[in-house]
């Protein structure tokens, strides 16, 4: 293959990859923007057949589920990352934990869903917001753990040594010096994990289950934005399709904002400020 042909093929491949992305975004913005209105943000879904209504309850539900998920996933993930970077560096145990975290990251979300179903929903006897939050939280752990580790490894050793030389106990040195120095990066990692689970549908089908009305109780089924989009997309009603597009636009804007923020923070070198 000649040099020119190879270059041409690589450019073609790039165009072919960027094209669907642009197509998806353009269509999403076009369909979503024309369907968004105030009712979407303040109304609950109307009964089948009636036009109008919104997804306010699903937005609240997603917020609650993500809050529960973060309460579980963020501390455990950060603690795991601290172990990997500060205590277990180079040990067999740390390698095994790192490997397991990477593998856990690849476990299909639907499998996570049925596992949490049999672990929490079956013993409780009913679907609940709590079980959905636990599923999302567990899915956050590997991402948070690995980014925390990477960020902590970027903190120069001199900082740790300086703290220890002042007689600061190790645990305080870790929390107040190392973790604090790396905190922009750790927060970034948490947001990345947050954005990733915000759009998860599969683990919520058998845990949070969905709800057509308001619910803020953790022990009852709760609506979630991705779940609602799924149900509405497969429904035969045009008005529900419209709401599905609007919901997708809201979801994607939130996620893109989070990812861009992450990108902005990492590219500005805030993380490298430590070194």
């Amino acid at each position, binding site marked *: 293959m*000649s040099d020119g042909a190879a270059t041409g093929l690589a450019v073609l491949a790039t165009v072919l*990859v*960027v094209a669907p*992305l642009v197509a998806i975004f353009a269509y999403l913005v076009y369909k979503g923007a024309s369907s968004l209105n105030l009712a979407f943000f303040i109304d609950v879904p109307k009964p089948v057949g009636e036009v109008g209504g919104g997804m306010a309850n699903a937005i609240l539900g997603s917020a609650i589920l993500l809050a529960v998920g973060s309460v579980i996933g963020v501390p455990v993930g950060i603690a795991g990352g601290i172990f990997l970077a500060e205590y277990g560096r180079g040990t067999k145990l740390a390698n095994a934990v790192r490997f397991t975290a990477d593998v856990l990251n690849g*476990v*299909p979300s639907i499998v996570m869903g*049925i596992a949490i179903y049999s672990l929490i929903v079956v013993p409780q006897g009913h679907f609940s917001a709590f079980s959905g939050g636990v599923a999302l939280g567990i899915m956050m752990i590997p991402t948070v753990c690995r980014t925390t580790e990477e960020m902590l490894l970027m903190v120069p050793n001199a900082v740790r040594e300086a703290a220890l030389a002042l007689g600061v106990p190790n645990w*305080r040195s870790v929390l107040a010096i190392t973790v604090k120095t790396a905190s922009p990066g750790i927060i970034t990692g948490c947001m990345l994990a947050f954005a990733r689970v915000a759009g998860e549908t599969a683990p919520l089908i058998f845990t949070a289950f969905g709800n057509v009305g308001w619910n803020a109780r953790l022990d009852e089924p709760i609506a979630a934005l991705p779940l609602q989009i799924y149900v509405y997309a497969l429904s035969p009603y045009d008005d529900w399709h419209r709401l599905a597009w609007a919901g997708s636009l809201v979801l994607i804007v939130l996620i893109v904002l989070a990812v861009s923020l992450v990108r902005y923070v990492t590219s500005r070198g805030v993380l490298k400020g430590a070194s």
Partner: protein
Amino acid sequence: MPEIRLSKLQFQTEPDPQIGENQVKAVSPEAAQIRKYLLSRGNSAIADRGFRWLMVLCALSIFGIVVLIAVELMNRSKLAWGQFGLDFFYTAFIDPSTHKPMYWDPVNGHFSAIPFLYGTLVSSFLALLLAVPLAIGVAVFLTEMCPPMLRAPLAFLTELLAAIPSVIYGLWAVFVLVPLLREHLNPWLIKGFGWSGFFDADNPTGLGFVAAGIILAIMILPIISSLTREVMTAVPQSQREAVLALGATRWEMIRVGVLRNARIGIVGAIILGLGRALGETMAVTMVIGNSPEVHRSLLANGSSMASVIANEFAEASGDLHLSALMEIGLALFIVTIIVNAIARLLVWAVTRGAPSSTH
């Protein structure tokens, strides 16, 4: 002032608080304050050890999660395992009156995973077929050919593809991709390649393996291309320079100097993409057609392991049905763990031992 530094050092290592206090008073009042402050903030061996164990415990919980998932799935799939054993994965009940296999018949209690294994394999294989050349092309373009100005935005765009939720891909596929296939691509495939038997005209919906394969390909592209980019960047610069110095063109340099050196990592990236494709649920469920049958035609409706769980789990008709679905979930869990483990090992083998770019 070396003397003062020395006395501070003594204070730090001094175990007896009485003497330490006297010394501090003699040397500097600030040191005493620092010491008091530190003591009040938990300067003790117990706190130190406790914190350490807390961190270890959290790290170990990651093992715990994997074990817990496995145990739960095994427990719940016991019923189906006892009933069908390994036959579940490779035999099917043959209807005595029509002589046709009844793969999945919850009403009469016949369960076999064959159509779902088949659906998962076919859709994932189609996805890899489409995604791998494109992903490698993008990675080559971004690492070796792209003007520096374009590199960051393009890399960001492909990363954005990875951040779009599965359900939104599904929504787009249902309302844009499937009509497109129905109106244009499928008739063309049937006309041109119908003779091969892979493209039959008996499914006019546009759903099916081809739709699932295309949407899966779009979804796994960013994973494969970003990892390929990573392993290609890990190839030392001196390799490129050496090949170029021998008079190679740019493409020859990429082929011999870069791709050949990074091939193990690229295989790892592809396998990781495969792992993602095997377990992908929502988008596939929305476009694969969801019928538990085995067809040779790629345009026919099918069902994958993940999609049958998503579809039938909530309204499973009995304990055996639920247990059979759990067993499919367990199989999916084991397969994705093996696939991911292999992929990670391959990618690590390349990027971990990689010499730094300065060489």
